């Protein structure tokens, strides 16, 4: 992507109010998660501590969002849970995007046999509903945040394989690829230097939206008890634990639920804004 193009996309994004709201929200959430140690009112409440004097306190100063059943500040735990969610999203995408894009590009560029085999493999993965696949992998593993990331990764790469396969198939026919082939460039060179750069904007946009969806799926797993285990703060398991105490202690479940909604919506808004900006630029 040339600098001039980036600037044009930025200008287009700035004219998109929804996208800008998303950008601001994402920035705020990411910064809050990074500096959770500094801004959280009770940083030690992220770990295995309990304050038996302040158990199950409704929202009021100094606990703005109330406390959980062992007396820990909900706001602190939500901030640290955001950190875990973002870490998961980054790790999952760092694993799945290279694998998925690699397979997709190969399948798109190489002959029909390879492409058929690789695409049927992605079919197998895509024909198990995503959450079901991740859950069943977790069924065989010890539940933890790390294994949750592995399970989500296993269901995520086929989407990138699909996307880059279609992009590569389209680019394959372009003049510049044919030119590179004519001068005898090797397959790695054509894939990585010629085709990949032209696929990056689409992949990047999808990644932005996917941050939200990875967080959503990871929260769903931990809601079912298949993700991070206590005392690690985790949005999904906070909702699940809190639901036991409805409606008397509504804050235990409502605030983590809203927190999930906020972060996923923020990345969606930003992703949609980026996509529209890219389309407009093109």
């Amino acid at each position, binding site marked *: 992507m040339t600098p001039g193009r980036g600037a044009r996309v930025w200008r287009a994004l700035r004219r998109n109010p929804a996208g800008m709201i998303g950008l601001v929200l994402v920035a705020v959430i990411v910064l809050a998660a990074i500096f959770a140690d500094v801004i959280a009112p009770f940083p030690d409440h992220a770990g295995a501590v309990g304050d038996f004097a302040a158990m199950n306190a409704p929202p009021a100063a100094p606990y703005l969002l109330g406390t959980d059943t062992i007396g820990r500040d909900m706001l602190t735990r939500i901030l640290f849970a955001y950190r875990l969610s973002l870490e998961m999203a980054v790790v999952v995408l760092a694993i799945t995007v290279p694998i998925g894009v690699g397979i997709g590009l190969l399948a798109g560029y190489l002959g029909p046999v390879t492409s058929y085999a690789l695409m049927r493999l992605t079919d197998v993965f895509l024909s198990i509903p995503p959450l079901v696949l991740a859950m069943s992998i977790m069924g065989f593993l010890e539940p933890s945040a790390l294994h949750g990331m592995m399970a989500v990764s296993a269901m995520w790469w086929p989407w990138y394989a699909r996307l880059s396969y279609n992009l590569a198939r389209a680019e394959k026919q372009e003049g510049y690829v044919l030119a590179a082939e004519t001068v005898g460039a090797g397959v790695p060179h054509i894939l990585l230097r010629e085709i990949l750069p032209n696929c990056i904007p689409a992949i990047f946009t999808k990644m932005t939206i996917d941050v939200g969806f990875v967080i959503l799926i990871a929260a769903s797993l931990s809601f079912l*008890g298949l993700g991070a285990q206590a005392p690690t703060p985790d949005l999904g398991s906070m909702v699940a634990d809190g639901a036991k105490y409805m409606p008397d202690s509504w804050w235990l479940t409502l605030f983590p639920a809203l927190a999930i909604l906020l972060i996923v919506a923020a990345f969606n808004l930003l992703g949609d804004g980026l996509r529209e900006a890219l389309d407009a630029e093109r």
Partner: protein
Amino acid sequence: MTASHSRLFGVLLGAALAFSATAHAETIFRMDDSAPGEADPDKGIDYVGSVLAFNIYDALLIPGQHGAPVQPHIATAWKIDGDTYTFTLRPDVKFHSGNMLTADDVVFSFKRMMALGKGNSSLFAGRVAEVTAPDARTVVFKLSGTYAPFLGALVRLPILDAKTVMAHKAAGSDPQMGDYGQAYLSAHDAGTGAYSIVSHVPESETNLVKFDGYFLGVAKSAPDKVRLRYGLQASTVRELMASGQQDMTSQWLPPEVMRVLAARKDVHLLNDYGSGIFFLHMNTQKPPLDDVNCRLALTYAFDYATALKMVKITDTVFTGFPANGPISHGAFGYDPSLPNYARDMTKAKDYLAKCKYTSPDQRAIDIAWITEVPSEERVALLMKADFDPLGFKTTIKGMPWTLYTQQVTNPASTPALSEVYIDAATPDPDSLLYNMYSSKVAATWESASHLKDDQVDALLEQGRTESDTAKRQDIYRKLVARLRDVAPAIFAYEENQVFAGLNTFQLPSLSDDNARFSAEEYGLQFRLIEMAAH
């Protein structure tokens, strides 16, 4: 759907309900328990499985009352001649099918339990040489050696209708017995109990109906129908109770929710206790808790009073009582002369000084709590607050039950400390302590301390083989004293399982100490429920 539509629905529903209330005068008792409910009495071992087995089936003996460990039931009398037990059966016991119960049914039921090898079969495994039925009203058990807890164990041998089971057998591994009616009994029954199964879905609910031909008769005030629902959320149970749609809760509600219910005027509390202990198992095979002094230091550093306060429901009702060892007050082998455990930091420091692990880094311990029981997390945090200042380095980890049961099969992967509630399967302390502390038994979740102690082993064997009751009592007191010295666990408190019930009914066997039975789980007899007059 709009608000006005749903209001219309509500009106229609209300009218329908009013109609049904006048049309039927029969009483129904509704409660919930953990999922799944196991209908096959030879498989269920948890609370709900036991409750179903005890209400749908009968055994030769049942847990005793007023201090007796067991009392006659289907067997009216028995004779013990060395290792041979001869039982005389009542002539008037009728199965739900209409068949009369005979000695052959007892023999069949024993064989079935042992062939399936699940549930409570471990109480008898390797102990019984032969079971015979010399005539229709006599059953003879020939044991393979002296086994004093045998009578207590019989409480857990449900008698099945052999004819009904065999009429419904499906293909299975045994050429003659097929699947032993397993498919059939997973949703139907073949018992003699005061209630019989109308429908059963393990994940969601069981519907029972009163059996008119029950051999002891059933009081008119007992509910005509019983509906047990499984796996309900705590919040749901709270709401169903508040709106009068459920009569009794399970004992699995978190203290917060139980407290909300206990504060209501239309609710009374019931409880079940007698053999359950909240164990904080200490892994005796892994540093630093392989040193008994480190274990004793923790034993005296633990804040027993605060632990009980955490499970407080009302000012007088707690889901626990102070403990003085692994045997509950009132149970066989309990020694009232021993003091209850209490925090004593002087003693804790003395023991710690004798421990061979000297620095906090050497004294790193991991504490595991079971994620299905949220209140255990609090106890883990309490331990951390108690032990870290003393000079330990604790890490806390929540763990799902299945994972825990796998990890504890091997001392190396067993956590240093883990929290487990365990109660005895029978009125005999052997059923609690043998599996837990005998070094002969393979490691399970009951024996997460992996204790290897010759004195404990010897006393456990003596307890099994001594037939004189007074001498046995003495053996178990010695055993408890020894266990207090070797400290394989912190005996945090005696378990008190508390239920909330609407005032629509009373159940003395779970509320009046004079009406209680000698084993937990038996007290929840639907036939003893007194529904309020209609």
